[in-house]
C-alpha cells in the first residue's frame, strides 16, 4: 500500500483543528473557521491523492497498530481502506467540506462561530473514525463520539430551551440504540472471538452457522445501533427535533453523514446477519419510509419536511440492506448525501434570506429574489423525487429492482407508494415556498445569499445531477462481489432499462405525485388537504402522535421507576444506612468534645493521671 500515512493524517487533521481552535483561537472567528475549513478540505484533497495512488480496490486494505490486549481481547486501532470506506471518506470530506464553507457564510452573524467550527471539526473527526474503523470496538467509540458531537451541535443555541431539549432527546434516543449495539458487539465477540471485520468475515464465510442459534438475536442487537443512528422506527422520534440546530448542522449531520452511519455499519457488517434478521430489517425500513413520507406531507416547517424526507429515504436504504442489497443501499446513501445536503443548504439559504422564517406558507415568489437558491433547489427536488436522469432516479430505481429481484412484492409496493408521496411532498414544498406570489412582507424583501453560500450549492447541485451514472454503483458492486464488469458511461446511463417493470412503476409514481402536487398546490394560498382528509391530515401533522404515545407510556413508566428508586435512595440508603453511621459519628464526636476544655491545666492534670496510671500498671504489679 502506497502512502500509508495519508489516511492517518486525514483522520487526525480535524481533531487537530478542534484542539487548536478550542485551545488557542476561540476568540478569533475568522481564524477558527479557516482552520476548520482547511482541515476538512485538506482531508478531501489528500483522500483524492490516496485514491489516485492506490486505486479503489487495492490488495492490501488495512493498516493498524495494536491498541490494547487484555486476556483474549485484542483490539487494534486500525483503518480499513476498501472501496466502501474510501467512497464514504470522499462523501464525508467532500460534502462536509462544502457544508463547512457554506457555514462560514451562514454562521457569520453568530457570536460563537469559533465554537461552532470546533464542534464541526470534532464531528468530522468522529465520522471519519466510524468510516475508517476496521473493528467493532473502535467503531463503537467513534459511534459514541459522533453522538456527542451531534448533541453539542443540536444544542448549539443552548439558550433556547427547545434546542437543549432536542439535544437531550437525540442523545438519549441514540443511547437506547447504542445499548443494543454494545450488547450485539459483546455477543459477536463472545461467540466468534474477534472484533476485526476482516477476521469476522473470514469466519462467517467459512462457517456460516458460526453464530449458531444466536444469529438472529445478534443481528437484531447490532441493528439496534443502526436503528438509533439512522433514526428507524421506533427510535425515529429524535431526528425531526434535531432540526433545532443550525441549518448547516442539519445538512451535514442529520442528512448527509451521521444518519447514514447506521446504513454504512449495516453494509460493513452485512455478513453477520442471517435471513430472519434481514427480513426484520427490511420491514422496519419499509415501514419507516412509509410512515415518515406520510408525516412529511402535512408538515409546514421547511426544515421539518426535509427531516421527515430524510427519515423516509433512510428507510429506503435500510430496506435495501434488508433485501440483501448493500449496493443499492450504499448507492442511494451516496446520491442522497449529495441532494439532501443540497436541499438543506438551499433551505438554509431561504431561511437566511427571509430572516429566520421557516414556515413555507409565509414564503412564496422567491424565484426572482433568490435565483441561485431557486435553481439549485429545484435540481435537488428533482433528484430526490427520482426524475430521470437525476441521481436519485438511478439509486431509487436500483432499490425497486432489488425488491423485485427478491420477489418481495409487499415492500416493492411500499417503495413505489413512498416514491409517489416523496414527489408529492417535495413539490408541495417547492410550489408553496418558491412559486406564486410572496405571502408576507419578509418574502417580498428576501435577498440572495452571499457567494460563499451559493458556491457550495452549485457544487453539490452538479453531483446531485450527475451522481447516478458516474460509476458509484459499480464501485459498490465490486466491493460486495456482485458484478465484475465495469460499465461505460452510456451503459450506466441506460442501466435502469434492465428492470423495465421497476422503471415503469417508479416513473408512474413520480408522475402521479407531481400531478397531484400541481393540482393541489399550484395556486393554493392555504393548505387544501386538511379539509379533504380530516382526521388523517391532523394525525399526519401531529406525527401520528408518537411523541405523545412515548410520553404516556415509556416516559411515564420511566418516571415511575425513577420515583421508586428515588424513595429507596432517600429513605433506605440515605435515611437508614448513611443516617445511622452519620448520627453515630456525630454523637460520639459531641461526647468526646466535652473532654476538650481548652484549659491547659486540665490537660496537665489528665496527663499526670495518665502517667500515674501507666506507672501503676508497669511497676505496681
Amino acid at each position, binding site marked *: 500500500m502506497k502512502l500509508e500515512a495519508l489516511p492517518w493524517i486525514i483522520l487526525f487533521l480535524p481533531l487537530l483543528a478542534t484542539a487548536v481552535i478550542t485551545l488557542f483561537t476561540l476568540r478569533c472567528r475568522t481564524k477558527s473557521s479557516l482552520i476548520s475549513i482547511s482541515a476538512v478540505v485538506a482531508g478531501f484533497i489528500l483522500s483524492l491523492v490516496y485514491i489516485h495512488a492506490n486505486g479503489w480496490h487495492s490488495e492490501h486494505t488495512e493498516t493498524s497498530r495494536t491498541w490494547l490486549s487484555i486476556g483474549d481481547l485484542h483490539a487494534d486501532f486500525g483503518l480499513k481502506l476498501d472501496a466502501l470506506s474510501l467512497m464514504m471518506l470522499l462523501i464525508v470530506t467532500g460534502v462536509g467540506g462544502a457544508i463547512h464553507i457554506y457555514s462560514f457564510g451562514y454562521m457569520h452573524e453568530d457570536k460563537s462561530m469559533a465554537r461552532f467550527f470546533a464542534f464541526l471539526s470534532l464531528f468530522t473527526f468522529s465520522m471519519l473514525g466510524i468510516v475508517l474503523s476496521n473493528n467493532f470496538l473502535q467503531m463503537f467509540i467513534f459511534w459514541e463520539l459522533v453522538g456527542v458531537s451531534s448533541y453539542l451541535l443540536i444544542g448549539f443555541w443552548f439558550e433556547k430551551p427547545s434546542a437543549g431539549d432536542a439535544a437531550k432527546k437525540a442523545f438519549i434516543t441514540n443511547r437506547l440504540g447504542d445499548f443494543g449495539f454494545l450488547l450485539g458487539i459483546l455477543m459477536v465477540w463472545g461467540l466468534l472471538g474477534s472484533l476485526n471485520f476482516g477476521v469476522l468475515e473470514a469466519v462467517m464465510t467459512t462457517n456460516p452457522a458460526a453464530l449458531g442459534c444466536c444469529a438472529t438475536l445478534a443481528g437484531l442487537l447490532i441493528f439496534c445501533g443502526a436503528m438509533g443512528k439512522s433514526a428507524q422506527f421506533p427510535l425515529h422520534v429524535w431526528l425531526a427535533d434535531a432540526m433545532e440546530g443550525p441549518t448547516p448542522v442539519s445538512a451535514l449531520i442529520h442528512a448527509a453523514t451521521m444518519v447514514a452511519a447506521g446504513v454504512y455499519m449495516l453494509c460493513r457488517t452485512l455478513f453477520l446477519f442471517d435471513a430472519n434478521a434481514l427480513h426484520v430489517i427490511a420491514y422496519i425500513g419499509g415501514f419507516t419510509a412509509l410512515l415518515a413520507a406520510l408525516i412529511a406531507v402535512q408538515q409546514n416547517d421547511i426544515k421539518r419536511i426535509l427531516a421527515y424526507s430524510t427519515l423516509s429515504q433512510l428507510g429506503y436504504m435500510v430496506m435495501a440492506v434488508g433485501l440483501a442489497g448493500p449496493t443499492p443501499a450504499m448507492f442511494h446513501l451516496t446520491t442522497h448525501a449529495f441532494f439532501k445536503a443540497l436541499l438543506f443548504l438551499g433551505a438554509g439559504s431561504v431561511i437566511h434570506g427571509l430572516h429566520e422564517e421557516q414556515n413555507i406558507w409565509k414564503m412564496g415568489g422567491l424565484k426572482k429574489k433568490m435565483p441561485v437558491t431557486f435553481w439549485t433547489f429545484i435540481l435537488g427536488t428533482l433528484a430526490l423525487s427520482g426524475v430521470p436522469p437525476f441521481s436519485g432516479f438511478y439509486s431509487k430505481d436500483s432499490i425497486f429492482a432489488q425488491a423485485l429481484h427478491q420477489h418481495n412484492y409487499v415492500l416493492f409496493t411500499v417503495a413505489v407508494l413512498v416514491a409517489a408521496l416523496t414527489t408529492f411532498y417535495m413539490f408541495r414544498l417547492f410550489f408553496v415556498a418558491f412559486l406564486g406570489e410572496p405571502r408576507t412582507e419578509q418574502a417580498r424583501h428576501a435577498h440572495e445569499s452571499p457567494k460563499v453560500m451559493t458556491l457550495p450549492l452549485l457544487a453539490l447541485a452538479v453531483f446531485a445531477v450527475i451522481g447516478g451514472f458516474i460509476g458509484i454503483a459499480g464501485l459498490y458492486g465490486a466491493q460486495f462481489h456482485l458484478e465484475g464488469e465495469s460499465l461505460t458511461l452510456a451503459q450506466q446511463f441506460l442501466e435502469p432499462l434492465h428492470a423495465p417493470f421497476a422503471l415503469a412503476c417508479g416513473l408512474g409514481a413520480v408522475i402521479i405525485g407531481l400531478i397531484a402536487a400541481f393540482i393541489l398546490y399550484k395556486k393554493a394560498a392555504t393548505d387544501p388537504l386538511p379539509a379533504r382528509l380530516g382526521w388523517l391530515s391532523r394525525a399526519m401533522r401531529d406525527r401520528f402522535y408518537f411523541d405523545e404515545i412515548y410520553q404516556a407510556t415509556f416516559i411515564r413508566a420511566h418516571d415511575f421507576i425513577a420515583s421508586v428508586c428515588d424513595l429507596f435512595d432517600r429513605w433506605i440508603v440515605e435515611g437508614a444506612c448513611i443516617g445511622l453511621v452519620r448520627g453515630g459519628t456525630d454523637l460520639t464526636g459531641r461526647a468526646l*468534645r466535652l473532654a*476538650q*476544655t*481548652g*484549659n*491547659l*491545666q486540665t490537660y*496537665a*492534670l489528665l496527663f*499526670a493521671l495518665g502517667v500515674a496510671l501507666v506507672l501503676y500498671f508497669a511497676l505496681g504489679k
Partner: protein
Amino acid sequence: MHAGLEHYLTVSFLLFSLGLLGVILRRNLLVIYMSLELMLNAANLALVSFSRFNDNLNGQVLVFFIITVAAAEVSVGLALIVALYRRRQSAHVEDLTTMKL
C-alpha cells in the same frame, strides 16, 4: 543517721509532686513555668543520687545535659511568655483558650 538512697528519692518525689501541683493549680504562667523547672530539678536530683549510689557517672552526665537544655528552654519559654503578655496584657492560663472550638 546515715542518709540512704531512699531519703534522696523521697525528697526528689516531694519536689516533683510540688512542681506538679504548681503546674496544675497555679494560674500565673510564670509560676507554672517555675514549677516546671522544679520538676526538672527533682528529676536531676534523682539522677544524681542514683549515680552516686551505683558508682556510675552516667547519671551525672545526663544531668549536665538536662541543665544545658533547661537553660536554653527557659530562654525560649520566657521569651514566649513575654510576647504573649505584650499581646494579651495577661499571663493567666484561663485566658489561653483560643484553640478550643
